[in-house]
């Protein structure tokens, strides 16, 4: 499944300072659906190069990270259980506090 993943608000530093990643992710063997839960596992082992605790806590993202699926807060579409579709755009953005 082809997806565009974007990292912002400093999270890009965890994946070699690259903000936009065009990736192909396959569902787990024996399954035909890819959920956000699966994607987080995939991101952690394939894109996050350092300090994974700055991205993941438990089986979800750490507090202070907003997840947007096609420009919509993932809380509005099922969070971890959201089923992804071909060409979906997933944004991980750390909230900023500076000014």
């Amino acid at each position, binding site marked *: 499944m082809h997806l565009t993943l974007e990292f*912002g*608000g*400093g999270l890009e530093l965890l994946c070699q300072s690259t*903000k936009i990643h065009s990736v192909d992710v396959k569902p787990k063997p024996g399954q035909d659906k890819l959920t956000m839960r699966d994607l987080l596992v995939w991101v952690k082992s394939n894109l996050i190069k350092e300090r994974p*605790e*700055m991205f993941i806590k438990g089986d979800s993202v*750490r*507090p*202070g*990270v*907003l997840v*947007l699926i096609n*420009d*919509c*807060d993932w*809380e*509005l579409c099922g969070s971890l259980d959201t089923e992804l579709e071909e060409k979906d755009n997933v*944004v991980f*953005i*750390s*909230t*900023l*506090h*500076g*000014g």
Partner: protein
Amino acid sequence: MDSKEIGGGLSGADLLREIERLRAEKEELESRIHLLEAQIKPRGTAEKDKSGSCSLSSLSCPQMNGTTLSGLSPEMIHRYSRHLLLPDFGVEGQLKLSKSSILVVGAGGLGSPVAMYLAACGVGCLGIVDNDIVELNNLHRQIIHTEAYVGQSKVKSAASSCHAINSSVKLVEHREALQAVNALDIVSKYDIVVDATDNLPSRYMISDCCVLLDKPLVCGAALGLEGQLTVYNYNGGPCYRCLFPTPPPSAACQRCSDSGVLGVVPGVIGCLQALEAIKVASAVGEPLSGRMLLFDALSSRTRTVKIRGRSPVCSICGENAAFTREKFQSFDYESFTQSPMSDRSSEKLNLIPESSRITSKEYNEIVNAGEPHILVDVRPVHHFKIAAIPKSKNIPLSNLEDKLSTIDSALKQAAQDSGKCASLFVVCRRGNDSQRAVDYLSKNGFPLAKDIVGGLQSWSQFVDRTFPSY
């Protein structure tokens, strides 16, 4: 008013429209009454107020010498004519703006354009709260301040700039830090709050306070080359805690004073905050509630995303929330977020024993005595390019593991050149990363490595006053 029209045979939508029209008419009449009343009262008393009150009962146009049908003075009509020409804003928008009071929390990078635009556009009362003083390294982004005010109160400086732009706006200077103990008192005097602060505990505190007092909150943030903006607690929308019930780990909280910020980025976000505050105050357009604007300066991209609504289980604004004013006032926001209520780093690491550390003065004596040594500077490369101690060798902390052999051969070379054993010293910006480096080095073949306490900051303070601080 034709009472026959009302009710009989009108549809629901027509009724709503009629109600809206009558409300506008009522508002206009009220504002004309206010203006007439203002003419009876003594003039010239409401220009600048340090008492902390922002009552607008006598409206803020002391030079008024005539009213018009619109309820705006001729001077106001002239000054705000470009607003009045906007069909979507017009007289109603300007009148509402002139009757609104807005508190800007923080007179920094975000607060600068917010305060300047709100003063310029003619809000009735503008409060500014901040406890900082103006520093030279603020001026690249905090455009409300000028060189003449370096060393002085930011609030004083900001108020003076705003007064110079529009002397008819009532300015209230709060020269203190907004904290849980004084926030209810200060915020309650305003209609709208703009969060232009630079730290996480203040953001939680301001949002909680706005929920308790039912004030809309225009919240902006900027760091590096990115910015974020949304309106909280507005029209049934979410509060900050609905979105972020749990604070992030403090290691994830970057500060402008550590990570840097391109000056114009908070400027862009601050301008948008002013715009949202104006929209809320004038009831024009769709404020950015339930949505968040994300700005990426590097790629010139902005995106507006849909965010979750008010959470029924939110501990502050949820249905069963038991958060009271008393609880708010005694809530420790710094310990809740594990972060200080300021942009400054308070971290003072004490990782390694005293015997593994020397002061900047001691290091200077070693240099002057010509003792053989090497100095490793573990800051990132872009920091090293700003300024460095002559002959120091840049090995960023993140690369240290791969560069042990480089350090080893440099030490051997120094020993060979001098015929004596060479020492190893480590320096960084403030003396935290240098301790982490010495800790690592001591466990990996360099037991005698020492770090310079307080880093280059201390070098600049106690040894070489000409060494630039940043």
